[in-house]
């Protein structure tokens, strides 16, 4: 067998010997295209907002066509009727007032929840006990729907903003704390060592190294927390609308449903969606652009 092997292989070949050569490289105008501007169409197609606007336009058209065909404003009012209700609500100032109420309450709860989450996550970084505390609390409370706490909150804090803020904090706190904690955990060992090398420790290390380094995770936690808070707020207003004094958007939807003013219900929902889009596409996107994208931590 061993003797047969060489015979089965093709004969050993050597590569042909070729002459060496040197060349002058081409420079200047004779080279042709090195860099050319894109066509208008290519540039338009690369705009994310334009593609998304087209999708929204398609949905709006489908809605209008379907609602006109159905012809039942009590089930599905047309887009034009919804927009009319929205503009009359805006002109009378009612929607704006309700919106302000909702957003004010939301910001209070959100800010408080985020501050508490950062505090808990920092505590978890500084001591093992803090870590255990955070892990136990998040695993216990994260699955608990915030709205389920509202009856209890009403007993503790009475009818008013404070009980809504309480459930908002609950809805924000655990999601943000969990993401922040995970983000802190994934900060590279090298960066931590760099921070300690220059004399940072404890709260200064967290503020100057961990928070910026974990910012992509923190930001996604902030986004999730914002969505949770917004949902919780509208739901809380729908169920216990009167609890927050003058009432917010959820209560506006509920009131108009009771009077069967369905286009106004749609206008209320529309406002909720628009605020969501604005926060996502204007606020969070710009925060991303000046932070994680600029730093090359997210493409």
């Amino acid at each position, binding site marked *: 067998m061993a003797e047969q092997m060489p015979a089965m292989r093709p004969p050993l070949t050597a590569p042909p010997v070729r002459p060496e050569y040197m060349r002058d490289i081409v420079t200047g105008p004779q080279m042709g295209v090195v860099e050319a501007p894109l066509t208008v169409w290519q540039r338009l197609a690369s705009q994310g907002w334009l593609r998304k606007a087209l999708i929204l336009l398609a949905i709006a058209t489908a809605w209008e066509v379907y609602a006109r065909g159905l012809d039942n404003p009590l089930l599905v009012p047309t887009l034009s009727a919804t927009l009319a209700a929205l503009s009359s609500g805006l002109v009378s100032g009612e929607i704006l007032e309700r919106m302000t109420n909702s957003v004010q309450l939301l910001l209070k709860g959100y800010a408080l929840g985020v501050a508490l989450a950062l505090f808990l996550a920092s505590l978890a970084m500084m001591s093992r006990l803090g870590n255990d505390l955070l892990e136990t609390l998040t695993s216990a409370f994260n699955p608990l729907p915030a709205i389920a706490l509202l009856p209890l909150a009403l007993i503790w804090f009475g009818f008013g903003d404070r009980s809504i803020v309480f459930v908002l904090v609950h809805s924000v706190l655990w999601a943000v704390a969990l993401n922040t904690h995970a983000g802190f955990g994934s900060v590279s060992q090298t*960066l931590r060592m*760099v921070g300690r090398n*220059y004399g940072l420790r404890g709260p200064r290390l967290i503020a100057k190294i961990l928070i910026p380094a974990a910012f992509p995770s923190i930001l996604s936690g902030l986004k999730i927390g914002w969505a949770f808070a917004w949902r919780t707020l509208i739901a809380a207003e729908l169920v216990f609308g009167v609890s927050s004094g003058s009432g917010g958007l959820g209560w506006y939807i509920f009131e108009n449903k009771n009077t069967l003013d369905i286009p106004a219900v749609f206008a209320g929902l529309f406002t909720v969606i628009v605020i969501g889009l604005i926060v996502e596409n204007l606020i969070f996107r710009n925060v991303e652009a000046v932070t994680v994208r600029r730093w090359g931590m997210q493409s």
Partner: protein
Amino acid sequence: MHSTDAPQGPAPLLHVRGVTLQYKTEQHLVTAIYRVSFDVYGADRFVLLGPSGCGKSTLLKAVGGYMAPAEGTLRLKGLPIREPGADRVFVFQEFDQLLPWKTVKQNVMFALQSSRKMRGKAAEAQAMRYIEKVNLAKFANSYPHTLSGGMKQRVAIARALAMEPDILLMDEPFAALDALTRRKMQEELLQLWAETRFTVLFVTHSIPEAVLVGNRVLLLSPHPGQVKGELNSDGSDPVDPVTGRKLSDRIHDMLFADRAEEREVVHHG
């Protein structure tokens, strides 16, 4: 022991005696470094050379104050090393040692400000002085992710030098670079040393790099690391008049002598 051990002349800057370093994994207590002693003097380019896994990076971490020795002492300027501090500045192998959310200039200033060494205009001027030294003035306002690997390491070196530390700790700083860039960086480092005469403790597993960069090379045996010897180098890889062999070849023989013996044993067995 000190008085008999210490050579005549200046006192060592870094004094390491009988240091054993151990770390815990999930199941084992591992000894990475066993009873290592050496002295580093001012303006030394002191190289710790050994194969991968000989604990040389662990030893550097102990000098940095990131881990305490199981036995032995580490002293800097006569004072025991207890914790990380800005008098011993690290340059790591990893490119992510730069803070991605700060520009080149801000990265250097961050070091000066965090350590409370300088602030405001003074920090900025110091930062720019050293950024110019590593030829990155044009990129002072760039973010790290826009720079090449070699440029990132130059920023890290500028940041460390701007601190004007007692000793610079370099942990295979050029290992992640391509061969051409590495060669250039080694020469630039020597150039910088000629200008400022810093003291550096340099970890590498490359014999040519050790011979080129170091004026004194400490050879470590593999796992656990023990001292096999200290050699002088003038960077030219000279031929030893007695043995007729190049310095790098002598180092190679010393480091891999064990392995050759192992091969012999296997061969005969």
